[in-house]
């Protein structure tokens, strides 16, 4: 039985020993009322015709794992169902069972085969490769080699898309827009990625095998088509010039957060409509304002975050005074 030998070899590769597999066959065969041989043969046949789940490789560079955690916050559908039922998650350092050489072997095998969706979290250090090494190799090289045979590349979070916070540091973190300039990348910025944005984009791609319609910053228009300000529930107060100055004052609780540094008018994302954490809350509703994490100039160019003294805030106010930001009823 060559096929059976082949099966054992493949199972071994995946960490299931022949003994374990036979134990499983015996147990299952008994339940099904079949002989062990009959059952093993059926499994081998099933393997040949099994519909393959699409492989996904998720690599992390200069990251904080926040996008990974954000992804596992998906409840509808739940993350467990995506990981086990919808995709074949070949490599994800925070989730996979394997470590060290076992983890690396799966990665290399999958990269060799090609045809996977590549998800990238975290930036790439451009100052020196040695600022991010995985398995003894520069993350930049891992990214470049994994990109070659990927059917789609998704940059999750501000760091992977445009460099994010690490872009401001001595390691000069860059996003895929600069690290993979010749490849089409679907950018899902915000810090961290919104789980709906990621799950929706992956499922859309798997269903249609097409990249969703993107804006000029390669963000899906469906999620990043309108500004935070367009849909902000505090927008009427912005129009009236009523800006919150004291978080203790119950009368000011709904006022505009511009004076506290809100960058909503120049930030494009559907946060006010979709909200975060299963709709429970989001930045503007908790009184802290939008810090522009969906935009390429996040973070350093938007500092100071919590005042209206930054360039972007001054520009927003100048436009408001010149009547260039339409009022809610006019929009």
């Amino acid at each position, binding site marked *: 039985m060559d096929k059976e030998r082949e099966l054992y070899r493949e199972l071994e*590769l*995946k*960490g*299931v*020993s022949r003994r374990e597999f036979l134990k*499983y066959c015996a147990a299952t065969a008994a339940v099904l009322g079949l002989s062990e041989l009959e059952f093993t043969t059926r499994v081998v046949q099933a*393997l040949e015709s099994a519909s*393959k789940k699409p492989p996904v490789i998720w690599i*992390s*560079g200069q990251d*904080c*794992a*926040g996008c990974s*955690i*954000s992804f596992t*916050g998906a*409840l509808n559908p739940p*993350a*467990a169902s995506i990981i*086990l039922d919808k995709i*074949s998650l*070949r490599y994800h*350092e925070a*989730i*996979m*069972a*394997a*470590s*060290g*050489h076992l*983890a*690396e*072997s799966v990665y290399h095998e999958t990269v060799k085969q090609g045809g996977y969706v590549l998800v990238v979290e975290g930036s790439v250090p451009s100052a*020196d490769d*040695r*600022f*991010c090494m*995985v*398995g*003894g190799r520069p993350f930049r090289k891992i990214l470049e080699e994994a990109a070659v045979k990927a059917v789609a590349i998704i940059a999750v979070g501000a760091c992977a898309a445009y460099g994010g*916070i*690490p872009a401001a*540091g*001595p*390691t000069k973190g860059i996003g895929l827009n600069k690290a993979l300039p010749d490849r089409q990348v679907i950018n899902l910025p915000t*810090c961290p990625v919104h789980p709906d944005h990621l799950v929706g984009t992956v499922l859309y791609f798997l269903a249609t095998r097409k990249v969703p319609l993107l804006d000029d910053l390669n963000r899906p228009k469906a999620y990043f088509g309108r500004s935070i300000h367009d849909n902000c529930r505090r927008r009427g107060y912005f129009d009236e010039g009523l800006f919150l*100055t*004291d*978080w*203790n004052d119950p009368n000011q609780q709904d006022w505009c957060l511009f004076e506290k540094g809100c960058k909503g008018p120049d930030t494009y994302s559907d946060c006010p409509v979709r909200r975060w954490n*299963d709709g*429970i*809350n989001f*930045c503007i509703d*908790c*009184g*802290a304002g939008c810090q522009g994490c969906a935009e390429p100039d996040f973070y350093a160019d938007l*500092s100071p975050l*919590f*005042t209206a003294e930054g360039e972007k805030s001054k520009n927003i106010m100048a436009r408001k005074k010149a009547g260039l930001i339409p009022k809610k009823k006019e929009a």
Partner: protein
Amino acid sequence: MGKKISIDPVTRIEGHLKIEVEIENGKVKDAWSAGTMARGFEALLTGKDPRDAPFVTSRFCGVCFSVHQIASARALDDAFGANVPWGGTLLRNLAMGAEYIYDHVLHFYHLTALDYIDIMAVANYKGKDKDLVAVKEKILGLVKANDTFPLTPRYKPDEYCVNDPDMVIAAVKHYIDALSMNAKARNMGAIFGGRTPHYQSIVVGGCTQYPDINMVARFRTMLDEQAKFVNEVYIPDVLAFGTGPLLPLATMGVGGGHNNYLSYGALEKDPAGNDLVFPPGVIFGLDPGNIKVQPFDQKKITESVKYAWYKQDKPQHPYNGKQEFDLNHKEAYTFVKAPRYDGKPMEVGPLARMIITKNPTLLGLVKKGVKPGAVARHAARAIETKLIVDACYKWCDDLLDAMTKPGFKIHDTDHWEPPETGMGVGFYEAPRGALGHWIKIKNKKIDNYQAVVPSTWMASPRDEKKVRGQYEESLIGVPVPDAENPINVVRVIRSFDPCLACAIHLIDPKTNEIRKFIVE
């Protein structure tokens, strides 16, 4: 000369860490811990508006984001002279409590449980429980489809792996359930934090989320579901494993280390901050029969960079430390600095906290023969999760009480503007242990910013005296009968809940070459 092995990447942790061990006679003889990624956060904050710091430093870690935000805000509170009103403290505590609950549960089920179970034992489950049969079918379905990623490949199960089908199938079900419980716990935190990961509402002087009664009611309802899971699933699972199949590992004290423990103390139960969920304290050379706790003195903290990729300097107190990289420093093997307390390496985190507070449940396990080590760390983590759940109920009551009184405040508005000059420190207890942020302000801008995080304490390299860090020391003597299958090494490392990216490689001791395990 033993055989050197290296695991890179160590997965199911946060970040990039490399650990090398030398094995002799089936046991670890020496070990090296190395962080292999740097972003330079402290350096990039220099010159920025100090009020950016809590938002930016939250991004130190997307798993334990709130602790950084709060520790940073506390450093600013100190430097600005802000007095956080009780309402602001309660909101911070509730946001923090939600993080503890999700983080500890995630660590047990998603980051470590796979090291302790033989997942394929689900095939032998003979019971009729509908939910468990569904789990069995799901896993067998993956095997039949010849696609068991990401549950395999894995290190070969050894004699300590649980293979009792009933225990394993329950653990696998709880692994799946816990993913949703984690998401819900983070959602609970977002009620006051704004959103997760990375809360938005924690600022110098307090919190920006003005609470209403419905928010408190919602938090409490969600807390009920979490409490049920913690009390009826998480704690029983940890105890069943720890006092059952893993008892030999527990009583051997595999993964013990230096036996020095440190807690800064955190989480106020009263406005004056006299009563803390986790009290501060220091223990040198633990004697379980006679626990002696010394007071904590922040002046005794220093950081050594002798074996790290930084510009060389003598050990410095964090106020004076710098973050200037030197990638060509010959002796260095990590981006992690080596913090020491009174010159000694320390363990921080749940085990340290539960020993320092002399928790009766933990001491009960010690009486049964459990020694400080990997298994005891899991137990301590579960025990303190219940303390946090109980504290969250109290904080909900306190918040309702405070917000229904006149003059309720969540923020110190008088100290919102940065001082011309100033310095401050924010101590906190992260899920992974003692956390400190230090800030110096000059011309209303950040002049110097330093953080000593729990994983810096524990993943640290050797210091000036060549004394190993806690991860390194805890690996000494750990049984590795098969160098190709160093499962005990990752068990010990993961028991600390590392929050950086590590790696362990297999190195040939003669040529010093990293052995290749790549399947061509």
